[in-house]
């Protein structure tokens, strides 16, 4: 037995001990259960007798011992005939142990194994599904080529079994048969195709696994099952989820167009264009060919998102990689929090997750920047975890956080773990090259480390300093001198070589020291490491060219030593250098250029992340983890330029489950006809197709209506396209100022909403759900003639938007209305909150865009405090304008009324008559907003707004100006 032999090779002594234990009655390793039977604990000979005895208990005892032998990796194959007789035993445990044995040894005793086949064939017909399943399991695990046809038949039968558990087993058996006999591929694919149609969650994971093993390239088998798989996903067992998600990632990459082109502009819109998202939207929409995400693509993203909360780390990672590879760029960041959560898990999990974060953080710093503290190294971390965290911290470093990161690094350098300290120094070097602001600070810091007591720290610092100096060699003569002084104390070869190289390269900056270093080197040359010797030769050559008067003899001496060195590299180099620099009759044209060759300006080495090119592998894969292509790795295909036909995914008779969870997109009237058809198809299971077609007709009508209304206003059209409701919103914003402090805006018109109308207003109360939310009250009215059911909020966008929805309203009678409150976190931006208002039958996309004044809450303060705070918010934080007041607004009450109608601010009692002051805070970030109005003699006034949020200030200024100018 090969295993037995290798075992003995590894631990002969151990094996002897084990053997001894078997022969002695006092075995410690077999435990209490066998302890009572210790008397008959002899050589393996008795096992055969036991197996052939009539007593069930003896047989069982024998099998237990045999399993013990197998577990230890010892051979028990000679017992095969005796064991196989028991395969038909009535005792379940005995039977199971015989199965274990069979699966282990059948390959070696093929003829004897055939004896058991008839038992399994009988069991495959058993009325009990578990017996059928386990028979198939064992039958397919016996790797005996003769029974391939029997296996094939059994698999085909089991795939049509009524029990989903048996069908699941057959999916597993497919892979086993395929590995035993790849020629069966075609037939097996047929079975896979059949099983893919299975609607049981039990089967889904296993059959996709079989698909991945047998025919991963047959993407066409997935089309019809795509939507079903997406919808089943949440209920599939966790292991199956991982497999399905990674398969669907690949599928989506072949079937949908890239969502990334669209977002090129929106990438920086996160920071830049918070306050004019409207214009941004317009820009995107007016692009030559607007990107519309395939609804199936969206379906996948939506259905995988909840799995980010799975307890299974592999599932979370699978979803994270799916989002990374498939989601529009601005949606990827929703996976961040879950990934960071995984860092609390076991060390091995951390290792893999950190590797993936390292790759992600190179491309998308912003994703992980808010969580930078989670990557701080703890002294208890394992070294490879520490190094990965260091890598991520370095990737995340930017101008804003570099000082904190460097402070962290400073503590790491002092770590006991010297390998880690050295890695930290490398990291400091990388920060220094990446962020020019801190280059000098880092360099100085590294120089300070040169006096560290630990040699590895010093050596690593030298190597890094060398690289840094190369990037900017000017005015660093001091440091080079300093390093020259250190030279005697440094023993690490790499560091010595680095110093020598620096001396040579910048020998003109240290004209006095360099020859002296060379002199010292000449003394110790023979005792140095090879790398140091090579650099000594280099230094000698460079000095010979620049300062031959002082160093000619030294150089010749070193070249002579090198000539007889044991290492042929050094001999070669010496020979080459000698020919190059020492002029003689034989040397050709080359020596003329010696100076230009040796002292050419050299490009600085780039200090790059080790994870820079890891993104060529799909995230979360073994290949990514190892940074080399693993066997069986499937390349993630690039997006197709043109999406293949979408209709292939349509299912003629859609499953009820599809109809239930399918939610039409807001842009559904612009999607293709196929999609429309599909929509109707799925609806037919519910309300009937007549209804749905009339609904789209109504919506088309409203679109047309909009176009008539603003025919000349071309630039605005795209906005209307995406959300039909923004039209109504627009018309109200114009007239807002004429209302009292409580203005009501229309959310959904009853024409558009098929009877459901919604209005909203800002009650200007602190939000109950979360302090950072703005409270919104929505009045829902049913103006139709039938009751509306299940009114609730559906999809929201942008995805990052935090909305506290109202509870579902079960039923709204005709003519009735109900007021519900919501909370929306606008994050201090006037970006509209888009969401879907859903009834049982319909979804309506609506949006709430707050006026800037509603993003504030009133705060009370005294006049002194006001002036003090105002003093702090000068310069950039101040916006002011001279405005003309309407005559009606001369009185203080009138001013208060106008200001309060625009913004939710509190009046500050004022001692001066011509001054009005108001104070407020932004709801989300609690930034102070101070408004002051100084009246002058005429109808003019100076309006000043002080706040950190300068964009808000200018918007508020506009709004106030408008309000005060109106009567």
């Amino acid at each position, binding site marked *: 037995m090969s295993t037995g032999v290798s075992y003995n*090779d*590894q631990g002969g002594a151990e094996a002897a001990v084990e053997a001894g234990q078997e022969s002695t009655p006092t075995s410690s*390793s077999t*435990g209490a*259960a066998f302890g009572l*039977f210790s008397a008959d604990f002899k050589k393996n000979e008795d096992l055969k007798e036991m197996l052939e005895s009539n007593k069930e208990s003896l047989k069982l005892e024998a099998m237990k011992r045999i399993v013990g032998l197998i577990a230890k*990796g010892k051979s028990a194959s000679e017992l095969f005939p005796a064991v196989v007789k028991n395969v038909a035993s009535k005792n*379940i*445990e005995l039977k*199971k142990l015989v*199965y*274990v044995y069979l699966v*282990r040894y059948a390959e070696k005793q093929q003829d004897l194994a055939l004896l058991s086949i008839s038992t399994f064939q009988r069991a495959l017909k058993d009325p009990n599904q578990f017996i059928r399943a386990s028979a198939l399991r064992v039958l397919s695990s016996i790797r005996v080529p003769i029974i391939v046809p029997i296996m094939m038949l059994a698999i085909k039968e089991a795939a049509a079994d009524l029990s989903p558990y048996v069908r699941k087993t057959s999916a597993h*058996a497919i892979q*086993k048969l395929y*590995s035993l006999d790849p020629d069966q591929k075609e037939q097996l694919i047929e079975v896979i195709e059949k099983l893919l149609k299975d609607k049981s969650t039990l089967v889904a994971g296993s059959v996709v*696994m079989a698909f991945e093993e047998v025919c991963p390239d047959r993407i066409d088998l997935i089309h019809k099952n795509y939507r079903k798989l997406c919808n089943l996903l949440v209920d599939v*067992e966790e*292991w199956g989820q*991982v497999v399905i998600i990674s398969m669907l990632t690949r599928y989506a990459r072949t079937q949908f167009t890239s969502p990334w082109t669209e977002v090129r502009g929106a990438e920086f819109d996160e920071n830049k264009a918070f306050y004019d998202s409207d214009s941004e939207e317009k820009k995107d929409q007016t692009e030559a060919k607007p990107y519309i995400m395939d609804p199936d693509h969206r379906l996948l993203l939506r259905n995988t998102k*909840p799995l980010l*909360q*799975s*307890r299974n*780390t592999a599932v*979370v*990672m699978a979803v994270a990689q799916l989002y990374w590879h498939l989601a529009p760029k601005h949606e990827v960041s929703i996976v961040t929090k879950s990934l960071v959560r995984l860092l609390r898990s*076991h060390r*091995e*999990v951390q290792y*893999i*997750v950190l590797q993936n974060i390292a790759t992600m953080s190179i491309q998308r710093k912003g994703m992980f920047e808010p*969580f930078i*503290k*989670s990557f*701080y190294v*703890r*002294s208890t971390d*394992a070294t490879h975890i520490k190094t990965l965290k260091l890598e991520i911290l370095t990737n995340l470093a930017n101008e804003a956080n570099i*000082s904190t990161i460097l*402070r962290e690094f*400073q503590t790491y350098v*002092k770590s*006991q773990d010297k390998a880690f300290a050295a890695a930290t120094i490398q990291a400091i070097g990388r920060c220094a090259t990446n962020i020019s602001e801190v280059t000098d600070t880092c360099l*100085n810091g590294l120089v*300070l480390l040169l*006096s560290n007591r630990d040699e590895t720290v010093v050596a690593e610092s030298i190597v890094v300093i060398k690289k840094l100096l190369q990037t900017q060699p000017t005015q660093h003569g001091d440091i080079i001198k*300093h390093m020259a*002084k*250190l030279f005697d104390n440094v023993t690490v070869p790499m560091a010595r070589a680095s110093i020598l190289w620096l001396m040579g390269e910048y020998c003109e900056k240290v004209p006095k020291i360099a020859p002296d270093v060379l002199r010292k080197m000449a003394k110790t040359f023979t005792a140095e490491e090879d790398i140091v010797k090579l650099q000594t030769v280099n230094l000698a050559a460079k000095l010979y060219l620049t300062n031959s008067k002082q160093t000619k003899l030294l150089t010749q001496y070193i070249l002579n030593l090198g000539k007889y060195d044991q290492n042929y590299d050094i001999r070669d180099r010496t020979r080459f250098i000698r020919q190059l620099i020492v002029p003689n009759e034989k040397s050709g044209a080359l020596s003329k250029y010696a100076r230009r060759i040796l002292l050419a300006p050299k490009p600085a080495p780039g200090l790059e992340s080790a994870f820079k090119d890891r993104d060529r592998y799909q995230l*979360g*894969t*073994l290949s990514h*983890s190892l940074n080399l292509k*693993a*066997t*069986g*790795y499937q390349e993630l295909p690039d997006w197709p330029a043109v999406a293949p036909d979408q209709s292939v995914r349509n299912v003629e008779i859609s499953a009820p489950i599809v109809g239930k969870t399918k939610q039409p997109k807001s842009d559904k009237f612009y999607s293709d006809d196929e999609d429309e058809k599909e929509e109707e198809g799925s609806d037919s299971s519910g309300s009937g197709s007549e209804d749905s077609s009339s609904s789209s007709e109504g919506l088309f009508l409203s679109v047309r209506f909009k176009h008539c209304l603003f025919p000349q206003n071309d630039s605005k059209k795209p906005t209307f396209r995406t959300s039909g409701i923004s039209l109504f919103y627009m018309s109200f914003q114009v007239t807002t100022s004429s209302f009292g402090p409580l203005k009501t805006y229309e959310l959904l018109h009853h024409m558009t909403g098929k009877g459901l109308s919604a209005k909203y207003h800002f009650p200007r109360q602190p939000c109950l759900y979360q302090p950072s939310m703005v409270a919104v009250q929505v009045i829902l009215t049913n103006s139709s003639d039938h009751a509306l059911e299940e009114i609730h909020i559906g999809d929201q966008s942008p995805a990052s938007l935090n909305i506290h*929805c109202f509870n*579902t309203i079960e039923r709204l009678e005709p003519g009735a209305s109900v007021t519900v409150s919501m909370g929306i976190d606008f994050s201090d931006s006037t970006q509209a909150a888009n969401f879907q208002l859903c009834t049982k039958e319909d979804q309506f996309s609506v949006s709430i865009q707050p006026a800037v004044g509603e993003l504030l809450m009133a705060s009370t303060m005294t006049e002194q405090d006001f002036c003090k705070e105002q003093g702090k918010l000068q310069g950039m934080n101040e916006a002011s304008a001279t405005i003309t007041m309407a005559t009606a607004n001369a009185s203080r009450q009138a001013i208060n009324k106008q200001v309060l109608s625009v913004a939710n601010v509190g009046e500050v009692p004022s001692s001066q008559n011509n001054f009005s002051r108001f104070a407020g805070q932004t709801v989300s970030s609690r930034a102070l907003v101070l408004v002051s109005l100084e009246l002058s003699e005429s109808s003019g006034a100076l309006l000043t707004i002080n706040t950190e949020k300068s964009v808000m200030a200018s918007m508020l200024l506009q709004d106030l100006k408008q309000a005060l100018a109106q009567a």
Partner: protein
Amino acid sequence: MIHSLFLINASGDIFLEKHWKSVVSRSVCDYFFEAQERATEPENVPPVIPTPHHYLISVLRHHIYFVAVIQSEVPPLFVIEFLHRVVDTFQDYFGVCTEAAIKDNVVVVYELLEEMLDNGFPLATESNILKELIKPPTILRTMVNTITGSTNVGEQLPTGQLSVVPWRRTGVKYTNNEAYFDVVEEIDAIIDKSGSTITAEIQGVIDACVKLTGMPDLTLSFMNPRLLDDVSFHPCVRFKRWEAERILSFIPPDGNFRLLSYHVSSQNLVAIPVYVKHNITFREGSSQGRFDLTLGPKQTMGKAVESVLVSSQLPRGVLNANLNPSQGTYTFDPVTKLLTWDVGKINPQKLPSLKGTMSLQAGASKPDENPTINIQFKIQQMAISGLKVNRLDMYGEKYKPFKGIKYMTKAGKFQICPYNTPFTGFSLTVLTNQIHVFR
């Protein structure tokens, strides 16, 4: 997927092997041993090791390496997660997961592994189902089995795998119906010398012990669910209900399970329940160092801080410590230089302190690092994040269950780091001084 599994103990012996496909020679573990030799600490063995024909993915728990042999591309986390699940199952079955326990129960272990994977793909990993297939060994059952020859393999075949709730077995019966929930929070924090928090976060779990008859459908609601914005659930929890209403709705597995784990991140404000004042100094040229450390409670909402244990790795140069604790006992291991002080309960009226001197190696230079201080503690009846369960309702069954909830806060990785100097850069004057020293 998973081809074979080898269990390797701390001394490097393979004491168990299991193959799910054809047999892989155990010589493949030589590559693992090589990596193990290269690693300085047992934890430093890389979890993923490539070999010419296979890939080894390993986890280390309870001083046992679980090494899985993989032949082709598979998400590494898939394997790692599974291996941890195996360890959890062993622990569940045998109480401990040690080499001795595994060897004693080698047959049960084999049966378990056989059920957990089919052809290398996970089949049954839910503890409820496994327990129906293979009964956990108890002393009584072992005795009975050996005498009567009966087995620990379930006589009845499991039903759970087929039901819509694959994590719960059917036909559960109890005379006392009870459901207990433990909210346990761990604070991970790094605090600098001046007492300001560098990072602090809370890791919480809700562990449940549910012994209810039939198919109960539970809903658990919180007073302040918005605290839970970063959660992971047991598969029984209904995602949709949570997203819409922030209510945990689930049909529980039978017995003990982890319902939920959550993370209150460093961006939120985390209350730190203890503070430490310490002053550890070494002087140049002197062979004595001074040690002074005082503990005190803060932000504990009146609850007592218990089971406090302070530990610190003193610098290598320290030979011995002669300290005087105001309460509890301390030990100093002169070999590992580990100082531990078992404080017990903190009395807010009389704060515990540990003072004294440390003797240094004569002639050795002043240690250049200050030690990091690790603290462990427990606070009963309080969840530091402020999370509170509002109510637990049961549907689907008629009886009235007994319900209980317990809160506890513990220290996780709670460190006091010795530095508080902000990074000011290294000034050039220092640099010139250094050069001076070198002359």
